[in-house]
């Protein structure tokens, strides 16, 4: 038996139920359209990667109850141009940033709660507004609003394929409780996320090493909708290996480890690979840039794993970790427990210690404490690793989201390979984030992209369906 919501074609069919999908659904519904959302997760895991987020980066001209100061569109633009290294659709980026100004107000109208800027807000208190309780609480509010507005949602329903006639969406093939159903609708909004949970697809970009990646978010993001659209002749943007990835604890679960698995001690550590060799300047720059680059660095090491080693002097200087560190009174003992070549690691650390120059250590900013005569150099926070007990954290690459997606314009219309927009298909969120994020990331941008393009997609789809 198909769910009753599948029987009657809706004005707007929304694939996904995260922030972008909700932004579209609520906007379309408020314009009077009938809306059906298809969510592959069950109620506990609903909301895709949005359930793991914490904040939204949006432009604002002044401090509010939720941000400590102005973050003008121009500064936002400069930040995104820097992290993407210009690898973006500049016009679309500017448009998104300017449109992001009312994101927080719009979310508050939908019942979403923000918290005042607090101590633990990671230096983002000015630029980003933090959801009270984080992304899952935000999603709970969204779902409450959907319920009130009379938006139909079917959980545990996975879109297997998108059926098109030329550039027109006709129906989605949806698997629900083991059965395949054909769900028709007048328009569709694609907000089903990326494909980071699809290791086979990641291998197309990364090769077999992708087997060793951990997925920080939803196991549901397998990219079936994206794949189906590409097969139907939609135009892609970005490349398969571009994604946001960070170094996380190697003991984290394969999926859904979220924020707590990050390892924050890299700058105070010596990072070795399993052969016991260092491979990059651990003290290069301040967080969060280094946080973002270490995922890729680790992915290039043997077995895609590395080990951050600190001594007792550094304990307590960084965010506590979800897994306790591996501990030993000797470096050899630690190497053995970590599974690192012990003689090499001992030599690496001895060489590093010999290269450490005197200086005034300061945990909170680049302090110039560096090494000399050691390759690679450590530029800041270089202190001898000499005070037992020694601690080690295994780190692996944790992939957060992918950038290969569908090309869209300012109206969130999906383009076909003939460079013409599809007739009744819009996209929002991670599935089109690659238009703006060709590479790199600045925390909270994904939420702004999802909300801005979600609302546009919802509005466009509702208007189209009702004409």
């Amino acid at each position: 038996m198909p769910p009753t919501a599948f029987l009657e074609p809706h004005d707007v069919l929304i694939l996904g139920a995260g922030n972008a999908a909700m932004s579209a659904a609520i906007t379309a519904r408020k314009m009077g359209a009938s809306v059906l959302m298809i969510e592959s997760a069950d109620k506990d895991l609903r909301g895709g990667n949005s359930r793991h987020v914490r904040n939204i980066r949006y432009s604002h001209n002044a401090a509010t109850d939720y941000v400590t100061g102005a973050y003008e569109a121009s500064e936002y633009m400069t930040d995104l141009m820097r992290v993407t290294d210009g690898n973006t659709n500049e016009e679309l980026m500017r448009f998104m940033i300017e449109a992001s100004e009312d994101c927080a107000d719009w979310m508050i109208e939908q019942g979403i709660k923000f918290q005042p800027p607090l101590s633990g807000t990671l230096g983002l208190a000015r630029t980003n507004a933090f959801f009270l309780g984080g992304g899952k609480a935000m999603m709970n509010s969204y779902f409450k609003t959907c319920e009130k507005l009379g938006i139909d949602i079917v959980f545990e329903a996975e879109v297997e394929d998108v059926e098109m006639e030329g550039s027109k969406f006709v129906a989605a093939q949806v698997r629900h409780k083991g059965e395949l159903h054909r769900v028709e609708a007048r328009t569709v909004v694609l907000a089903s996320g990326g494909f980071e949970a699809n290791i086979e697809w990641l291998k197309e970009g990364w090769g077999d090493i992708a087997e060793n990646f951990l997925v920080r978010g939803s196991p549901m993001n397998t990219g079936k909708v994206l794949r189906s659209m590409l097969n139907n002749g939609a135009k892609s943007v970005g490349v398969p290996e571009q994604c946001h990835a960070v170094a996380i604890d190697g003991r984290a679960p394969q999926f859904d480890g979220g924020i707590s698995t990050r390892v924050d001690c890299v700058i105070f550590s010596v990072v070795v690979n399993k052969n016991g060799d260092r491979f990059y300047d651990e003290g290069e720059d301040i967080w969060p840039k280094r946080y973002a680059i270490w995922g890729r660095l680790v992915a290039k090491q043997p077995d895609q794993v590395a080990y951050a080693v600190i001594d007792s002097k550094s304990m307590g200087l960084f965010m506590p970790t979800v897994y306790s560190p591996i501990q030993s009174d000797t470096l050899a003992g630690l190497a053995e427990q970590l599974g690192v070549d012990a003689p090499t690691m001992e030599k690496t650390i001895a060489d590093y210690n010999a290269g450490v120059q005197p200086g005034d250590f300061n945990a909170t900013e680049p302090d110039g404490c560096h090494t000399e005569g050691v390759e690679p150099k450590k530029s800041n926070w270089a202190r001898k690793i000499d005070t037992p007990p020694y601690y080690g954290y295994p780190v692996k690459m944790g992939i957060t989201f992918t950038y290969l997606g569908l090309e869209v314009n300012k109206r969130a219309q999906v383009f076909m390979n003939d460079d013409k927009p599809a007739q009744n298909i819009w996209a929002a969120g991670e599935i089109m984030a690659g238009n703006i994020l060709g590479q790199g990331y600045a925390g909270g941008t994904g939420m702004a992209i999802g909300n801005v393009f979600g609302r546009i997609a919802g509005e466009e789809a509702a208007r189209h369906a009702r004409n």
Partner: protein
Amino acid sequence: MPETETLDEAKRIMQICNACRYCEGYCAVFPAMTKRLNFNDGDVTYLANLCHGCQGCYYACQYAPPHEFAVNVPKTFAKLRGETYRDYAWPGIFKKLFEGNGKWVALIVVALTVIVTGLTYAIQGVDVVSGVYKGEGSFYKVIPHDVIVYVASAPFLFAILAFFVGLMKFWKDIGAKPMDLLHPRALTKALKDAGQMKYMGGGGHGCNYPDDNYSMGRRVAHQFTMWGFLLCFAATSVATVYHYVFGWPAPYDYFSVPVVLGTLGGIGLLIGPPGLLMIKKKADPEPQDTKQHGMDIAFLWLLFLTGLTGLALLALRETSLMGLLLAVHLGIVLGMFVTFPYGKMVHAVYRLGALIRFAHENDVKK
């Protein structure tokens, strides 16, 4: 100290929470947590008692079951609090009253009410108890003033002593210094936070009830209950002063200070406890320790009945039912005092202790 298993689970969860910190906006627990890198038995005991059970962090938790991390802070802390109440009970022989507490409290209160009422009838006779009295000292024609004072004040003073001993044990275990308890700024801040029930505010939007919905309902019901109780207590205190200092015996005029305070308090107890009972019944059991519901329900009924019999006594004090109502009310109040250190009332003691500790930690940091 509570069970090792419960403490270990609380420590496991706090290590996860401390690496996440998304919930820092909800209450005092998470800011207090972030001051610590590791969690010992005392730390989690303190944090558990700082938790007001608003449940915001449960619904917001990306690691709540079915996630493999299985984080459930409100349930774990509720369980730990329950064990705190039992383990700090003094004298230790009464710890077992916390096992199946609801039944014990009900039994003690009913027994005392029956005994007080029965003795009143037995000693005074039906005619005296059923008499209609007016004016000064009419209550004491049924039960002599001294009897009321001795019978009620003995268990009350004992309860204060038991609270104090329990609090000092708790205070020592959470690693605080005795004098910190009297730190003036910390004490003021803690009393303010308790008076406002700030942390039932869940970051400004209330507790999560009956599911992930934000609601001020629980905070409002709790305020009626707490302030209702405190007003009744104030009414009794003022009346005591009237009696001993000014030599004015009860009953007092309807617009006198004790009667106004008592009436407002009684109304609070008619509204608050049923509200909390309803919330408890409707709310999602997942973030709660449902094994403690017996204790909670008994306590709420006890407060409700105290208010109800008190108001009934006021309303019917010039009728032949006064004697019966006085005996019943006195029996229930006696039951309440006797069970104070061995029932839900103790939550107020440890919660206030935890709030003082929290205020003190923040004060010292500045």
